[in-house]
């Protein structure tokens, strides 16, 4: 399928944004549900205490721990969602690849969790600055990951690596189901079209019993440089 029209591309971008936002709101709903019930438990204990039943300090400490963990989790979800939402603000900008991919993984992890697939992510120890479109990069990596997840089995491990190679920055997804993945990605399609829009390339490589999706990102900046490419 070819995706030439800008209008169609915007529909796909909206669909991607919508999927991530829906997943994050679901996650947030779980956090709020837990906090809601923990507050209710606290109310139950206050009522019990008022009617003369002793409430132990240990129990209260346990409740405090639950509230504290869920609040931190909620704050993290909101921060990730906020960073993701703001990644559409500037579509041609200098950004750091490790941090953009890290944020994408944090918002996309639930999709892997729901399939019981374990994501192992490693980042480049060096800062990788590129001048490109951070939102589209996330969309491309998300879609590649989504395809790999579609053919993954429970308890599969999927490795995602962000690294700087001689030819430029590379995001590599190693999926353990090569035949099925190749079948899903053998047609020139939206992934390729999206990579072209990023002035980048996407390729597939079999490595032993695994299949790698390699995304070479254009627009790399030499370390320490802040100039935009022409």
């Amino acid at each position, binding site marked *: 399928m070819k995706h030439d029209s800008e209008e169609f591309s915007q529909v796909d971008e909206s669909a991607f944004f919508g999927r991530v936002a829906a997943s994050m709101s679901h996650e947030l*709903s*779980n956090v709020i549900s837990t906090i809601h019930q923990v507050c209710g*438990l606290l109310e139950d204990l206050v009522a019990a205490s008022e009617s003369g039943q002793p409430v132990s300090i240990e129990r209260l400490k346990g409740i405090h721990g639950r509230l504290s963990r869920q609040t931190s989790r909620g704050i993290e979800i909101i921060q990730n969602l906020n960073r993701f939402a703001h990644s559409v603000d500037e579509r041609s900008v200098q950004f750091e690849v490790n941090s953009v991919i890290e944020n994408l993984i944090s918002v996309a992890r639930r999709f892997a969790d729901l399939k019981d697939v374990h994501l192992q992510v490693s980042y480049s120890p060096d800062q990788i600055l590129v001048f490109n479109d951070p939102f589209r990069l996330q969309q491309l990596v998300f879609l590649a990951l989504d395809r790999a997840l579609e053919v993954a089995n429970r308890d599969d491990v999927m490795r995602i690596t962000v690294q700087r190679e001689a030819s430029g920055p590379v995001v590599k997804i190693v999926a353990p189901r090569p035949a099925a993945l190749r079948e899903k990605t053998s047609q020139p399609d939206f992934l390729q079209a999206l990579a072209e829009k990023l002035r980048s390339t996407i390729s597939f490589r079999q490595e032993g019993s695994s299949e790698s999706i390699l995304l070479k990102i254009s627009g790399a900046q030499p370390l320490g440089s802040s100039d935009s490419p022409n």
Partner: protein
Amino acid sequence: MKNDFKVLIVDDEEELVLTLVERLEFRGILAKGVTKGEDALARLKEEDFDVVVVDLKMPGIDGLEIKSVVEREHPTTEVVLVTGQGAHDPEQDLDIDAHFLMKPFSLGALVEKIKEVLEEKESE
């Protein structure tokens, strides 16, 4: 209806399960909780429950699968599906005949839903 029923709570949110079980027990309701669909099916083989309250979306065996196993193998047990899918109408979206409860819910709403489901069963 009295609180003399037995409930199994199934949700991958561990702290939610722990808290719901504590709160139900506080009201004299027999409640157990598990965080995996597989554990729910194992527990159902070990003991009888009047109602299973299960999250629709979970890794592994999800709420719909549990509902279908319960209907097939434990016909006296009722199922309430819990969903966090916002403003959507889950019954219409999923096109299934089921009892739904939307997250977040109050404990009062949960107990009321359980009683409603059991009363409906009794009247059949």
